């Protein structure tokens, strides 16, 4: 079937409609325009692994040439992705470096390194000492916990003057919950100096709490987020910096990798996939890792209009 020029390629995201994946869809669309492939994006209406699996089940019946997936929970998708591959569908994943049933997994960067990088910035801002707290979207989210642990481990290794308070707090990917948790941290540890967030909504909630408490200048807040979500808190200084990777690029690269597989092309260590951050990817097993870190702060976030 490799002769077919115009492939049917579907990207399945964790949840449809949120800013992050809306941005990813722009990348998918750009890929479609660039390559004239029939590339589309879909995803469940609720953040639930079960619903994502159901969508992939249904997709298999449609027999697209390739499925690119951002798994909500990689483990739970193994069987259904295996089924897809058994039916000859090309499977590419993202944010799932431990996925077994995939042909290629595309990572914008190494998650542990990304977490450590956020910690480096946090530590620098805090002057290497003081109390800090760590938030994750949920304890069941693998990537969030990898970032969080990457940061925590880096602190333990390199910044002995810093001290984490409480345990990793769950915010259910909800800015309001993050706000409540941050407020409670402020009550329990009034001398808190830093926060590291994981869900894109975390820093928005933390920033709001910090701003209200009038602590923008006295605390440091870093986390994964998007400029569109964190921008106004970056402006006021309540949030000091965020890190992310461009979901559009990731969407583009996933589809591109899938197309290469369909076209029978090889992917090798050090290869240039033609997108910034993926110019010199490292390939280890099935995992393709780029260096697509984007670190922004007040000064430059406006360059990323998403």
């Amino acid at each position, binding site marked *: 079937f490799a002769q077919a020029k115009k492939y049917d390629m579907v990207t399945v995201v964790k949840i*449809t*409609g*949120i*800013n992050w994946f*809306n941005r990813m869809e722009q990348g998918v669309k750009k890929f479609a325009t660039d390559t004239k492939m029939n590339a589309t994006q879909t995803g469940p*209406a609720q953040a639930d692994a079960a619903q994502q699996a159901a969508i992939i089940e249904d997709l298999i019946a449609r027999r697209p040439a390739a499925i690119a997936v951002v798994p909500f929970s990689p483990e739970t998708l193994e069987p259904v992705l295996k089924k897809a591959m058994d039916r000859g569908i090309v499977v590419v994943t993202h944010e799932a470096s431990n996925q077994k049933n995939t042909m290629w997994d595309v990572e914008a960067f190494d998650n542990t390194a990304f977490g450590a990088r956020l910690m480096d910035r946090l530590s620098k801002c805090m002057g290497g000492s003081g109390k800090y707290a760590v938030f994750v979207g949920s*304890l069941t989210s693998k990537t969030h916990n990898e970032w969080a642990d990457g940061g925590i481990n880096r602190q333990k290794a390199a910044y002995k003057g810093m001290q984490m308070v*409480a*345990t*990793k*707090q*769950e915010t259910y990917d*909800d*800015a*309001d919950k993050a*706000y*409540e*948790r941050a*407020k*409670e*941290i*402020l*009550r*329990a540890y*009034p*001398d808190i100096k830093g926060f590291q967030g994981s869900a894109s909504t975390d820093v*928005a909630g933390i920033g*709001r709490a910090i701003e*209200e*408490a*009038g*602590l923008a200048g*006295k605390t440091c807040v870093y986390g994964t987020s998007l400029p*569109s*979500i964190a*921008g*106004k808190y970056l402006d006021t200084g309540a949030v000091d910096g965020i890190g992310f990777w461009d979901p559009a690029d990731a969407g583009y690269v996933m589809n591109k990798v899938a197309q290469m597989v369909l076209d029978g092309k090889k992917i090798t260590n050090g290869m240039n996939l033609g997108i910034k951050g993926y110019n010199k990817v490292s390939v280890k097993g099935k995992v393709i890792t780029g260096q697509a870190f984007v670190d922004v702060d007040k000064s430059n976030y406006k360059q990323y209009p998403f």
Partner: protein
Amino acid sequence: MSGLLGEPAAARAPSSTWRSLTRRPELVTLLLIVALSLTIGLINDRFFSVQNGVDLLRSSIRTGIFALGVLTVLAAGGIDVSFTAIGVFALYVTTKLTMSVWPDAPFALMALASLAIGLGLGLVNGLIVYRFRVPSLIVTIGTQYVYRGALLAFVGTAYITDLPRAMDAFGRATLLQTTTADGIRVSLPAAFLVLVAVALLTWYVLRRTLLGRAVYAVGGSLPIAERLGFNVGRVLLFVFGYAGLLAGLGGLVHGAMNRQANPFDLVGSELDIIAAVVLGGARVTGGTGSVPGTLLGVVLVVIINNSLILMGVPSTWQKVVIGAIILVASGIFARRSATA
């Protein structure tokens, strides 16, 4: 003919404490709050600080507004699980509309739009429930899916973080403000006034108008209310409309305080809010519940949800602890109604 009630009325009273707890279930809630606070305070004395008190009040605002709507529906013997969808619908549509039409619109106008949307969607609930005589749980599950589905499929999915000016200002406005010894600014938002106003209004309507008593009458027995000449259709339209109205308001206040209009918000929290109302003494079977009780129930739930870090509960255990506290609280309520 006076022999019938020979015993003076005061001669009864099997146990007056239980009786008063039966008549005033909000006392149970109050006791629970006191007990829980003492426990938490023992573990961490920061619980008894101005900062904590103000924060808890602030956290009660949104839940409180929604809960008062839920109370009205429960009192009439219905249940509403669509109010969160109504709230987020009103919030998002109002914000999006304002941003595209008149970003400088006064907040009052936005509030009016939100209230109107909430009222409209609530009335749809009431209309279906009454016209087709369907249990309200069924109808409102359906409308929750319809309202949320319509919002996300036809209106939009992107967060709006750039809010209309007046809305942003309202979200930041504070009522009173102090700074703690640790240099942390503590403030009670102006939105608290909204909760106070809504609580007073709801109290007045439920306690001091015929409509309010009709709500409880319908909750006691709908067929009897009908037979005695109460316009049951109006009552049902009122309760669902009012719940929708408050949901619309609650949604907007939530958005303003949260400084973003996120169409994925709120839905999913309806059971927690209903639980707060029930822990405030309203029964799911209808005909009971009061405004003070509901507010206390909200405070109870807010304390449960916002004291785990103070208590030092590790996050893996937080759900277990929350569940256990809910069970203990419901257990005390169950004992109360068993003796009622």
